[in-house]
């Protein structure tokens, strides 16, 4: 599952179909073995504004008087999510699903900090993180496995990297052209600097276009049950 493409900015609905909000950011937790796991969805202006304009948000936060929990986004624990198809469906009803988050834990980080970070490959600048791939792995949950790197902003492949023959032809051709230099690397080979928002990668990598040819048209848009294979 491509997090930027298939999870971020998706509509969250409650158990009855009422609309809750959009997935403005995703909460990741570092587990004991060093891997990153998706643990929650973050909603609200406090989650979205840093993605729109990081510097502006920092100034805003610095300018206002500080109360505890004021600039912390609303959080929905991943356990409350029943399924992910073209939107996110929760198990519960709207009223009880988005309490304010706890103060940000150093073990918890935000996907927005990772997406769009500049990346160096074996010392040389090599583009930005444009997407993050995660896989549901049974007990451990939705674990981040690979980084997609290239030019352009997060999600700018518009999904054309996944399906070989998605039309229209002209748009697909333009996207392929823009991303001909994009590549995928295993997250284990990367060291992520969360404070400065940069990533250093090394080791084997593969071009993005290879994935398009390998995968069939079954997309992760079909139901993904977090916590199951």
């Amino acid at each position: 599952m491509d997090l930027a493409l298939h999870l971020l900015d998706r509509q969250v609905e409650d158990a009855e179909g009422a609309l809750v909000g959009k997935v403005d950011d995703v909460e990741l937790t570092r587990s004991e073995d060093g891997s990153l796991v998706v643990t929650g969805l973050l909603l609200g202006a406090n989650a979205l504004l840093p993605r729109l304009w990081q510097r502006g948000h920092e100034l805003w936060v610095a300018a206002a008087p500080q109360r505890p929990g004021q600039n912390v986004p609303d959080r929905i624990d991943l356990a409350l999510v029943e399924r992910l198809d073209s939107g996110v469906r929760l198990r519960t009803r709207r009223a009880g699903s988005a309490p304010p988050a706890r103060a940000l834990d150093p073990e918890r980080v935000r996907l927005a900090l990772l997406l769009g970070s500049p990346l160096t490959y074996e010392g040389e600048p090599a583009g930005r993180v444009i997407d993050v791939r995660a896989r549901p792995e049974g007990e451990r949950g939705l674990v981040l496995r690979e980084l997609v790197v290239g030019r352009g902003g997060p999600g700018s492949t518009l999904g054309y990297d996944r399906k070989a023959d998605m039309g229209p032809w002209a748009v697909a051709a333009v996207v392929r052209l823009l991303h001909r230099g994009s590549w995928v690397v295993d997250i284990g080979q990367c060291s992520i600097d969360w404070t400065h928002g940069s990533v250093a990668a090394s080791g084997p990598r593969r071009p993005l276009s290879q994935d398009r040819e390998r995968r069939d048209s079954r997309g992760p848009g079909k139901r993904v049950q977090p916590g199951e294979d």
Partner: protein
Amino acid sequence: MKRFFAVALGILTAIGGFVDIGDLVTNAQVGARFGLSIAPAVIVGVVGICLFAEMSGRVAAVSGRATFDLVRERLGPRIGLLNLVGSMGVTFLTFIAEIGGVALSLQLVTSVNELLWVPFVALAVWLLLWRAKFSAIENVLGLLGLSLIVFAVALWQLGPDWGELAHQAVTVDKPASESWATWCYYAVALFGAAMTPYEVFFFSSGGVEERWTAKDLAVMRANVFIGFPLGGLLSLAIAGSAAVVLQPHGIAVDTLGETALPVAEALGKIGVAIAVLGFVAATFGAACETGLSVGYSLAQYVGAQWGKYVRPQAAVAFHTVLLLITLAAAAVLLTGVDPIVVTEISVVFSAVALPLTYFPILVIANDPDYVGEHVNGRVTNLLGTVYLVLILVAAVAAIPLMVITGMGQ
């Protein structure tokens, strides 16, 4: 039998709801100055809106999601925000123009000043948006809007030289006294009036409001492919009647009254009364649609509950936005600005905002994650790509043309 009536209702509502103040004014202005030589722009625009409305209707029916909802998902929050600001701005301008249009239409028959009507019209619009059922608004106002067929009747009655009219359209027979730059400006304006962004957002959000499913695809396509072109014919009838009656006298259209003069000549008092009924219904309906569209766009960007398919208490933010924009629109109109001028500006800026709207629709309608097996066929994609290029050209050319021609002088 019931099914037949449902389909017929949909088609009739689509015809009656197609024309709004932008189409009314721009077509009449162009008909009076250029005859039918800019008719090709209308036809191209109508084909375009049919194409993209079908796509967004299909997305709404199969995925249960409205178009603007998906813009942020596909293009990211930054571009989504740009899109939001652009289309909200243009749609809000159109909203102001529509409310002004209702007030002008009412002034036409009662000779009570337009400014006095504005508060009442704004109040009526807000009450309908808050209280009335979605389908009731659509059906009643759409059917009343069918009164505009009187323009087609008037054109027939005037007995023009049809060959001459057709010749003007086909050979793009521009009057010698007008420059090509002005011709292009008005072509872009008509294109923008036919393909206004709010129509697509409204159509798809309306589909979600009415709980379309894949079974409704055939009905939706009938509405789009029969209803919209016939609505486009109404636009051409307005242009044609202005061409036949006003152009020979060199009368330029800048009030709503002048738009109705051809009907007066052809059909007399009754005709004008029906035409004004059509004006009121079309502009009132469009006012509701544009108001709702602004609310839909904002709520769908943020992810908040929107729509009239839930009780107002469940969508408080949505209804608050509707109230605020109605107040703001009334305030703007009460400054005395001419709604016709607002209309002209909104139509040009609609042309500028088109790419932001239509590019995401084209991408989304191709994505099996949203539309399953109902992805675009090759022909649709080819046409869609051609239109994307046309839209880009129009969007880029709109502002320079506006400046060069001084808004069409």
